[in-house]
């Protein structure tokens, strides 16, 4: 189980971190989502959790979505400077929050069966994850609405940057928290 949860953690890292070398994104989102859903399928084979199952389905949709977007950007049919790309980014973000959120909720349900303390901790982090990411998405929308407001641009960068870091922290902290639990580390036996 630990190796699977470790893989989920790295999948989320790939999803959240974008590093471009020239035109090519070496951490493409669809790769992260592909690893994510592949691993979740294995995990949920044991857990059979409804929320994880929903997360998996949205994740599958996102894999396809990001394959199309990445190819579009690479083939220059989608211009990254356009409003259209901005809207795609926001749709992707909303679906990502839905998928990751459902996964976090599902895993909290499973962990609560073992440790109430960890369950409460996860509950609280999931809330932080949802709140910061929602603010981030709303910020992205506001930024798109007034792209020419130079006066506010600085504020957006500072505020958006802070929220972005917080959102990233909470997104990564949950899968990291899960994979470092002792009951997953100590044995590879099913928790059910």
């Amino acid at each position, binding site marked *: 189980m630990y190796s699977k949860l470790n893989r989920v953690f790295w999948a989320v890292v790939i999803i959240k971190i974008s590093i471009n070398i020239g035109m090519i994104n070496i951490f493409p989102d669809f790769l992260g989502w592909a690893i994510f859903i592949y691993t979740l399928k294995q995990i949920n084979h044991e857990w059979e959790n409804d*929320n994880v199952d929903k997360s998996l389905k949205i994740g599958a949709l996102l894999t396809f979505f990001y394959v199309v977007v990445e190819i579009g950007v690479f083939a220059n049919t989608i211009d990254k400077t356009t409003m259209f790309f901005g*809207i795609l980014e926001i*749709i992707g973000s909303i679906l990502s929050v*839905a998928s990751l959120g459902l996964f976090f909720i599902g895993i909290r349900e499973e962990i609560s069966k073992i440790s109430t303390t960890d369950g409460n901790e996860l*509950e609280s982090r*999931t809330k932080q994850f949802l*709140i910061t990411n929602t603010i981030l*998405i709303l910020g992205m929308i506001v930024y*798109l609405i007034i792209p*020419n407001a130079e006066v506010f641009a600085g504020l957006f960068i500072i505020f958006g940057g802070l929220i972005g870091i917080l959102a990233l922290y909470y997104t990564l902290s949950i899968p990291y928290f899960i994979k470092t639990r002792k009951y997953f580390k100590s044995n590879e036996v099913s928790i059910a």
Partner: protein
Amino acid sequence: MDSKRLLKLSILISTLALFVFIFTYLNSSLNKPVLIKKYIEAPISDSTTSFVYYNEFLLLRNEMDNSTILSEYMVEENLKNPMVYEENFSTNKGFIYDEYSENKNRYKINYLNYKIEPVLKPGENLSFSKIDYVNQDGSSGEFDIGKIIYFEDINSTSYSPIKERYTDGGISSSSGGEINTSSREYFFDAAEDLELIEIESDLIDLFDKNFDMKINNVDYKNIKGMKIPKGGQIHIKTTFELDLNKEEVDYNVVNIVGRLVFKDKTKNHYKKEIPLIFELLNPSDLEFDYIVSAKKEG
């Protein structure tokens, strides 16, 4: 509130915001100002002040309530002096345009900037077909304005061997139903023996299928070598016809100023302007939609 509810709420808020945004964006994208194209030939003045004044109507549409904003602007450029347009023409041609303040702010254009084409050289005809604009919100773009072509003014020559009979000239135009026509007749008396050479115009070719000109009942394309005896008459009839059943247009004014080129016995060359203005519709009276896509179904 547990995280499951919070998740639902988050997705709902984000999705609602996205819809509001898309709705706002689609509405604002409709607000791009629209300009009706005009095709115009006009003489460059030969006056010593060497300024050209040119009046033009700029029609912008408020797409939200479909009303029209009609305003007039003036281009005042030093077009005549080759030194001036060689040195300055490619730089400072913008002018502040703040006539819209009483109207919708989102249409306010900070400046318009004519683009010259082709690259201007002294002695060549000067033509414009594009305007750069910058809106108040910082967005910018380009208008296709049709074509404005300036040619060297030839009316100032003191002597002309033909005299116009103003009383006989007639202008008529009609815009009944879908067929719009504009026609004008000129009558000239020749004071000498003359030989016609050609009709000179940069716009005629563009509107070949709409434009017709007969000189003493001969098509203008076939007048080369036509002799006009002293005391003889030159009768010119120009017509512009547009059938909206057959043709879709995005312009409302065509002002063709053909120049009749002829020579006398001593091979002196002369030119006479033969203007014809065709106005499809009066923009201020009509729904804008009708002008941009004036075409009948089927």
